[in-house]
């Protein structure tokens, strides 16, 4: 594969830097040695303003092979952020100033106080004992699914004045004793009573803060802080809040002036609004779903793959463990429930695997509609051993499979077991993971 072929680049790099100081010993992202957040899943990953969602559940895959207890804290950042919400004040202030004439209160960051830390439910959890909701296997690995849902953090529909609106609300509560909650940072709800227009506060907020977001969607983020002993990891996950369905709030989008084509209008039917960009009704995105994970002995790309699936659980597939001799390699191929769509088509759009984006044409200065097909990539993680490709993606590696090479020695502290995780992303916010185990044989 190209990625692996690009291993040859080490020759180039080493030649270019005369091999004197290439940093060869830095950790790889696929090596899980301590506290890590491997993925955060939002269900659903995308919010359409029509229909409005009931609630969104955030879940994170948090692991620490050292067996330490992990504490988590969730926050919700109502604005898109490039810095895990540390830039919130800047973003908020801009918009708040803009909106000051409307006596409108900007939304604020809120903590979710009743996040639940749950044991990770994997395919093979017959080992270890569950203590206080933490599954333990000789205390070598803690794996959690930390979850914020329902009352803790939700986007709920509200219809003041009979109009569609989107609200963020938080309710206090402490579901477990892993941490305490700061009550002053809780339960902030934006005031919708003084809105001068018939839109929700977040709509207005995004529209005034960034016209582009009002058209193509905005990405408020959930922020997770996980701590394990002295280690701490901050992670963020966006949800895609899409406003541009032609059936909703279209009148507001007509004034959008992106600098490329002004004014830019979108519509469902050009005969009604000549000159507008005709967009499809958007089908809400969902997270990818694993249908199977298969494996093949050896490294050969032409080897026959065998299914590992032995059942389903609520959080993924139940997979048969792989057994690999130390130092040897297998190939692992994930499969997904997804229509067989390679090019955009009507059926693909209906099925929800195709979607549209707006893109600028730099030659003409206009904005065009680009039709895209979901394209899943898989990130690979293991507590020991190496992957041929840490990331597989059909457009880059042709297939989604990769090579896993077992460690040269049998890991004694885990009785020879190694944990693997596959984290799949659909390139537009959908995310799913799958765990599996490998037994290293002498």
């Amino acid at each position, binding site marked *: 594969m190209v990625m692996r072929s690009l291993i*040859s680049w080490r020759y180039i790099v080493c030649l270019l830097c005369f091999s004197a100081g290439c940093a060869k010993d830095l950790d790889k992202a696929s090596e899980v040695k301590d506290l890590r957040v491997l993925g955060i899943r939002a269900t659903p990953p995308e919010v359409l303003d029509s229909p409005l969602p009931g609630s969104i559940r955030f879940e994170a895959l948090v692991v620490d092979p050292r067996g330490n207890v992990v504490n988590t804290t969730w926050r919700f950042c109502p604005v898109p952020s490039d810095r895990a919400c540390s830039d919130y004040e800047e973003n908020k202030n801009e918009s708040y100033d803009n909106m000051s004439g409307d006596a409108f209160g900007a939304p604020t960051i809120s903590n979710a106080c009743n996040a639940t830390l749950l044991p990770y439910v994997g395919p093979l959890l017959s080992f270890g004992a569950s203590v206080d909701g933490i599954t333990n296997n000789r205390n070598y690995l803690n794996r959690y699914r930390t979850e914020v849902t329902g009352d803790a953090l939700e986007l709920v529909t509200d219809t003041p004045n009979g109009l569609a609106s989107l609200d963020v609300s938080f309710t206090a509560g402490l579901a477990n004793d892993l941490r305490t909650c700061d009550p002053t940072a809780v339960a902030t709800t934006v005031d919708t009573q003084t809105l001068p227009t018939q839109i929700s506060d977040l709509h207005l907020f995004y529209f005034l803060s960034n016209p582009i977001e009002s058209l193509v969607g905005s990405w408020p983020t959930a922020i997770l802080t996980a701590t394990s002993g002295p280690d701490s990891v901050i992670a963020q996950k966006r949800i895609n809040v899409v406003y541009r369905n032609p059936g909703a709030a279209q009148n507001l989008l007509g004034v959008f002036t992106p600098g490329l084509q002004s004014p830019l209008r979108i519509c469902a039917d050009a005969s009604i609004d000549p000159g507008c960009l005709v967009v499809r009704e958007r089908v809400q995105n969902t997270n990818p779903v694993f249908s199977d994970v298969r494996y093949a002995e050896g490294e050969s790309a032409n080897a026959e793959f065998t299914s590992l699936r032995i059942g389903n659980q609520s959080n993924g597939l139940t997979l048969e463990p792989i057994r690999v001799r130390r130092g040897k390699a297998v190939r692992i191929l994930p499969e997904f429930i997804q229509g067989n769509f390679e090019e955009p088509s009507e059926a693909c759009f209906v099925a929800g695997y195709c979607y549209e*984006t707006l893109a600028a044409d730099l030659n003409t200065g206009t904005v065009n509609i680009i039709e895209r097909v979901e394209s899943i990539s898989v990130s690979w993680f293991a507590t020991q051993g190496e992957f041929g490709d840490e990331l597989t993606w059909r457009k880059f590696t042709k297939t989604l499979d990769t090579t896993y090479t077992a460690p040269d020695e049998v890991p004694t502290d885990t009785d020879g077991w190694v944990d693997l995780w596959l984290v799949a992303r659909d390139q537009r916010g959908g995310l799913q993971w799958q765990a599996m185990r490998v037994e290293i044989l002498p």
Partner: protein
Amino acid sequence: MYRLDSVIICSAIAVCVGHVTPAVAAIESQGQPSQNDPKPLPAPVLTKAPELLRLVNATYPQELLVAGIDGMVLLYIDIDATGEVARATVVNASHDDFRVPALVAASGFIFSPAQIDDVPSGIRIEYRYVFRAPLPIPDVIAGAPAIKPSAKLPLNYYGEVLLAGMRRPISGAQIVIDGRPVAETDIQGHFEIRGVPIGKHRVKVRGPFHDTYITDEVFTPGEALKVRYFLRQTSSNPFETVVRGKVKRREAAKVTLGRSEVSKIAGTGGDPIRVIENLPGMSRAPGGAGGALLVRGANPTDSRVFIDGIEVPLIYHFGGLTSVVNPNMLEEVEFYPGGFGARYGSTIAGVVQVKTRRINCEGWHGNVDINLLHAGLYTCLKVGRWTFAAAGRRSYIDAILPTVLKAIPREEDEGIFTLAPVYADYQLKGQARYGAHSLDILFFGADDRFKVIQEGSAEGINFEISLKLAFHRILLKDTWRITDKLMLRSIVSPGYVRNQFVGQSEELDVKNEFKLVIWGVQWREELEYEPTQWLSIRGGIDMAFGGANLVIDAPIPTDIAAFPTPTFDFGDTRRFTRKIPNTSHAYWAEATLETGFGLQITPGFRLDRWDFHHTQDYSFQPRVNARFEVLKGSVIKAAYGLYEKLPEPPFLMERPLGNPALEPLRSQHFIVGFEHAFTDVINIDVQLFYNLRRNIPSPSNSVIYRDGKQLAEVWSNDGGGETYGCEILLRHLASNKPEDRVYHSLVDYLRGRFYGWIAYTLSRSLRFDHAPDATYSLQQGQGAAFTYRYNDRASKRYLAEFDQTHILTIVAQLILPMGFEAGARFRLVSGNPFTPLQRGDAYFDADSASYHVDLTNVPRNSRRMPMFHQLDIRIDKTWTFDLWSFAVYVEVLNVYNRKNVEQFQYDYRFQNKAPMTFLPFFPVLGVKGTW
């Protein structure tokens, strides 16, 4: 009238016949100021050196003669445009009794007129009159019959004496038969002797700077013996090993380096252009191998490089490997770190002016240079009125590297991997003179290619990546000396640049391409007028017409707010094309006024007009330079100048890429300095400088309202910076000592064979993107705007990328016996600043599956890399044969394998970092043949 503001090296030989003692003259302009110095013209070129036509023998002081004491007198001789000696002055003498005889003799010399820019001109030369006590009369000692040359006797012994290796005539060589000097060679190296007795005789041939050649010749009745003797220089020509610093000039800060002077400096690969990296004002380029022009804390793009007055797009192959001009084609390199005159524009930092060789070629000469990286050829030939020189080089790393790569163990399915970097350059020059016109035609260009090919991988995914950067240019120059006070120089130069990158994989159906073709014509007209001895005026126009075609087939991310992903689709390409017109014209003038009390002042101005794509700008830039000779050999100098240039093209593209409304970058240079000559070979130059830079493009948060549209400003002129510091250059020039003199100490021995310099720069360079409390505004309509303050990080000053507090460079070169020459370069430089990252600054982004750094509270460039130091050495050994010479050289970079940290590489979550070092111990072996 003579000129002092150019670098001139030539030599002449004379013989003091009366005492049968060779004398040697070294002729060169020394740049030593004189109160009666006439006003210099800018950048003249010595096209013909003066030759001694009539030698007047000095009277050997009787007492010294009896005592057998040799001696030397160093004279300055001012030669007028007719070749007559206008004035001679004694600089120093080994014995006072030699002074007057040498002065009297020199006053009667007659020379052929020197030609500057092919016009007979006055010149000052340095003449070294050597007194050598005559040998005892052989017949007195040995009783042999004296040989008395007489026109009545038959001619039976004639021939020529040539310089071994170069086949150039040696004038003034002695022919000694049986111990008795009987003849000397003329200007063409010829000699004739009549009436040599029949039989076998011991013949010695000795030249002023050469080994004595001894042979036995047999003379037979009725036959004339025709011979050709080759003498080897006793060392490399000392005149070619002078390290030349600053000659008299108008600018406060300018260093001129001659080709032959610096072709063997260690660490430069024999590349004179690379030597400027060792001068004050130049920051060390990252990577250990040099390359970038980092002048006084500015970016590399802020400096310009000219070849014979025409800008070239690049000066180094692959960004720093070696320069694009064959060293054999170079005459000299001028480096202006700042404060330069109005002649140069569109630069806010430094200027490098490369002058190609003034061809002086009698017969067919040339050389071949082969080392581990490339092979080069230089040759010259005279055809009628025209003299031609050609040079070219090509690397052959592409032939070696694949073999090395194949030898590296690799995984079975990785396939065959080919790496093919190639660089080449060429120069072809012709020159001729027609009346008052001196014509030059120069074709030159360079071609860099880099190709990476992966074939036969197990998965069947192969790829090819290629990079090509080439330029070709023609330069036509006419120097018309209208009168002896008025000269017009016209330069027209059409050129072409092609920059192309292609990355493709058939299996993945991916092809990315970037192609930029730039074409245009540069045209310069320069008028020089010298109405009086104390005033000279220069002015000119500087124009460029052309454009560029840009084609990009690449995965340009044009999605409006694309959702973050862990992947990048190289196959999702967009085609972007542009035709970009580019025209500029400038008008400049300056005048140099020389007062009678040592003050020289040169005010000037430059008016630029740029039309690039959608950008039009004007600029008026006043500049002034002043020099004041407070004492003989001591000069105080000062300069001020305003310098402007357009931002680099990417900043001026249409939104959302750039901002065509950006204003020109602006820099003000303030310089004061002092020069002092301790001796004739040791001098020092100290400069204090302050560069104030403004209008540097910075990312802008503003949204403006124009033509009914809200537009992101993208870039603003809010950025700025300043660099201040002190530069010291302490030089030891080579002196022109004859090889066979008696040395009294090691220091005395080294004095004639050593040259080098110590360059030290103490400086600080600061940058800012926005001034403190700077604001940006979001304009929503005509006049309606909301204003916000940039955050602290965006409006805080920080150390510039290449800020280096201490830069110390020591260069030493030593000419050794037996054709050896050794040199070393040592550099000690402060580490470059960097922004330290640590785990706490990073967060995991679950959508892009990567860690990002929140730089909000991370001070920018707040730490430094470890101190850089490196020693490079070079050793040359030359064997000289009759018809050619052969040299072997070895150059070792980073002798003690210092692992200098150039960068830090972080792991995926910025938790750990590893230092990246580059140039390790790196030897290069080469050979060179010259004929």
